[in-house]
């Protein structure tokens, strides 16, 4: 009994101590975040706050045609030594102002009365300094409203702007004409919000397409069983740069060839119709639909050579297609009028194809050569005697690691420009070769190494690192690369979409049921087939739902990416905030709110239908 009581006292004391500590931490937070309600109570703040809130409540969407009546009345501040001057007498019909008194010291109140204005008009009454007439001075509550007789009275405190010259009070009263129409700001907002939505759409599509293959590489359950012996890994690694170089040279050459042939439209059209047919039939011949037994070596070699020829031909066709797109696109852009954007699209697609063909082709050749050499390595591991294999492993591992380190060295040279080949060429090559040899010595010659997990870890690290860079920061880099505008914003959002979706997707791949995977594997399917038949059907619903979610995020992000020059509505919003044009800013904020909530609604509707 006594014991429990003691514990409970100790317990309460501890709780009290924690509560006290919590309060101290919270108190420190007050200081660092500068909590200060004193400021809020100050009249100056409240006045500006009211002004801004009212402006925000009146988004600048509609306006009227207006007529203005501007009337000046002269006065002296302070009164000249000679006494108040005579006021010019007013004739009956024109609008005029009277000031009582006609001269006063700074800070004194003057009654301004207006007569013969148009009824029911409003507008500011301002002070015009004599020596600086361009800068009107606002006088606080200076908005005049005329009654049905065109009369108004306003008491104004004169500003502290004394001068010997004559100064003025100016009333600018405006009247609306006709029906309201959209303001310039509304038009600007509309065009920018359209830009914003498309920016988000393109970024999402672009990001999704590239994130899907990446997500497979970043999924542990798919990569863990990927194992290869050292000879195979070494040859694959060497295959990449050789293949890329080889592919790039070939396809660049094809591009030049195409450029020479492409000047003739008939050659262009002929190749565009003939090449797909030849390629399709050639492909059908070279890749038969079913083969119960492995065909002879000669047949396989002929097929391989034919495939290579077909690929070169197909790329020639791609270049031709690109140049045709550009020609037709240019023509359409001029001829289609309002639908000229279709021509623009065609031209740009042609341009993208032309730029990326050689690069993508090079990557494809790299991948093909790498996997081909990998198989040779696998065969060598199975067939060669152990001693020969050990020697081969030693050489290949050294060469492969030296290649990797050499490339890293080149990256260092490019980024930091040390200009010393010892650090960027010889050093990395020697370190790489040594590490490769160490690896070859300390692994068993025929052991399958977990290369999948290495690729997985590198990809994950890369994704995490890039994901932690905000899209706004990426936009800054892209603004420098492609110039200010929505394209930069699209690229930045697209890149961020790739890395974050790849992460989310890969987690979905990791959580699929393993049963179907096992079943498909048991039928004798290869890895790619297993992914297509067992993995993809399972991940379609979560992929769609994550893509929609990301689209949501991209729409929201694209509204602010303009803050750093990435195009979209953010640019306009920031401009208006900086110009203190709160009514304009309010129009843009309204547009953002409408679009984001609409997107939210649409995506949740779609998600329900699809899944």
């Amino acid at each position, binding site marked *: 009994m006594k014991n429990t009581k003691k514990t409970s006292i100790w317990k309460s004391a501890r709780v009290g101590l924690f509560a006290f500590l919590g309060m101290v931490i919270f108190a420190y937070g007050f200081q660092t975040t500068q909590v200060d309600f004193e400021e809020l109570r100050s009249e100056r703040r409240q006045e500006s706050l009211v002004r801004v809130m009212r402006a925000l409540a009146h988004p600048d969407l509609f306006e009227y045609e207006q007529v203005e009546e501007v009337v000046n009345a002269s006065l002296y501040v302070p009164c000249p030594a000679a006494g108040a001057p005579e006021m010019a007498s007013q004739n009956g019909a024109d609008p005029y102002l009277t000031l009582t008194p006609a001269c006063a010291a700074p800070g004194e109140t003057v009654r301004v009365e207006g007569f013969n204005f148009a009824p029911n008009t409003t507008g500011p009454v301002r002070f015009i300094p004599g020596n600086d007439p361009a800068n009107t001075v606002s006088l606080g509550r200076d908005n005049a409203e005329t009654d049905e007789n065109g009369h108004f009275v306003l008491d104004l405190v004169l500003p502290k702007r004394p001068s010997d010259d004559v100064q003025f009070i100016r009333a600018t009263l405006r009247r609306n004409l006709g029906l309201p129409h959209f303001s310039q700001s509304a038009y600007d907002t509309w065009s920018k919000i359209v830009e914003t939505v498309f920016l988000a759409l393109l970024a999402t599509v672009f990001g999704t397409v590239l994130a899907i293959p990446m997500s497979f590489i970043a999924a542990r359950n798919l990569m863990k069983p990927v194992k290869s012996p050292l000879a195979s890994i070494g040859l694959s690694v060497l295959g990449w740069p050789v293949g890329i170089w080889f592919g790039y040279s070939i396809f660049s050459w094809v591009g030049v060839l195409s450029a020479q042939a492409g000047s003739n439209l008939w050659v262009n059209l002929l190749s565009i119709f003939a090449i797909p047919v030849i390629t399709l039939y050639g492909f059908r011949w070279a890749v038969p639909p079913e083969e119960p037994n492995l065909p002879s070596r000669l047949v396989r070699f002929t097929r391989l050579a034919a495939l290579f020829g077909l690929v070169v031909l197909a790329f020639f066709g791609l270049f031709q297609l690109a140049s045709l797109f550009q020609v037709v696109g240019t023509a359409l852009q001029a001829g289609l009028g309002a639908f000229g954007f279709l021509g623009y699209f065609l031209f740009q697609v042609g341009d993208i194809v032309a730029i990326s063909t050689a690069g993508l082709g090079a990557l494809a050749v790299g991948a093909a050569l790498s996997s081909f050499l990998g198989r040779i390595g696998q065969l060598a591991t199975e067939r060669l005697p152990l001693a020969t294999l050990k020697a081969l492993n030693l050489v290949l591992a050294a060469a492969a690691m030296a290649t990797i380190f050499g490339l890293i060295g080149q990256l260092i040279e490019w980024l930091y420009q040390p200009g010393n080949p010892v650090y960027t060429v010889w050093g990395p090559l020697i370190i790489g070769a040594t590490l490769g040899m160490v690896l070859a010595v300390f692994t068993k010659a025929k052991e399958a190494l977990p290369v999948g997990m290495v690729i997985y870890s590198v990809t994950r690290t890369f994704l995490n690192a890039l994901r932690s860079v905000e899209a706004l920061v990426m936009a800054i880099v892209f603004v420098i690369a492609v110039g200010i505008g929505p394209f930069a914003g699209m690229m930045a959002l697209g890149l961020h979409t790739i890395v974050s979706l790849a992460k989310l997707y890969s987690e979905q791949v990791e959580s699929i049921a393993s049963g179907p995977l096992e079943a498909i594997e048991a039928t004798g*399917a290869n890895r790619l*087939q297993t992914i297509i*038949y067992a993995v993809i059907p399972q991940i379609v619903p979560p992929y769609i739902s994550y893509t929609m979610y990301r689209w949501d995020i991209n729409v929201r992000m694209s509204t602010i990416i303009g803050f750093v020059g990435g195009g979209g509505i953010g640019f306009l919003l920031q401009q208006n905030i900086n110009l203190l044009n709160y009514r304009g800013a309010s129009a843009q904020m309204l547009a953002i709110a409408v679009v984001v909530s609409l997107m939210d609604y649409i995506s949740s509707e779609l998600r329900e239908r699809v899944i």
Partner: protein
Amino acid sequence: MLQIKNLTKIYDGGVKALDNVSFEVPDGEFLAVIGLSGSGKSTLLRCINRLIEPTEGQILWNGENITSASQDEMRRIRRKIGMVFQHFNLVHRSKVITNVLAGRLGYVNPAWSLINRFPKEDIEKALQQLKRVGIADKAYQRADELSGGQQQRVGIARALMQDPKMILADEPVASLDPVLAHSIMSHLEDINKNDGVTVLCSLHFLDLVHRYADRVVALNGGKLVFEGNPKDIDDKKFKEIYGRDAERVG
């Protein structure tokens, strides 16, 4: 002839799932594998098509060494070995026919199969196999719309698509009710008797073993404790296989 020689499997955690198991299965036999849960039945079956890599020992099938086959060779061997699973392991969101056609993946050219193109003969064959197991009308439904018994028939049709010489059935009826169990088992029996396909089937119920199996091997704790005719399992053998506290039911 399938020969298993001194097969041992030790998992990464140190668990010995199979301990020096050796037996032979002549072509065309219906062999039942019995034993408690965790006795190594599933591991044994998965070692035969190397879904699980054995730690030691050899598996020979008609003179071919399965344990030392390369990945490419293994794919060619696997396509002659059909497999049927306890939880059917169908791809739920795919159509029944796609699930069945998947059995053909080892034969078709990978390039065409990636875009879901199968030769006409294969599609006809798939429909025939579905007819054979009695669910031809379900071919274009999604796999998860089918009942458990129907799903297992799809699993059998998928295995049949491989033109198998051997079928490994891992507790094919353990998640079905007894009536369905007989219907599924009779399909396996039909394949075994009429097509001459060797069947290795792990089972829980002894009455099913008596009814369908030509021969039986029993595992306990990864060790082979019995090999012979199902009728020879007397009470003493039974306790050896299933442990001292086990009672015969049914």
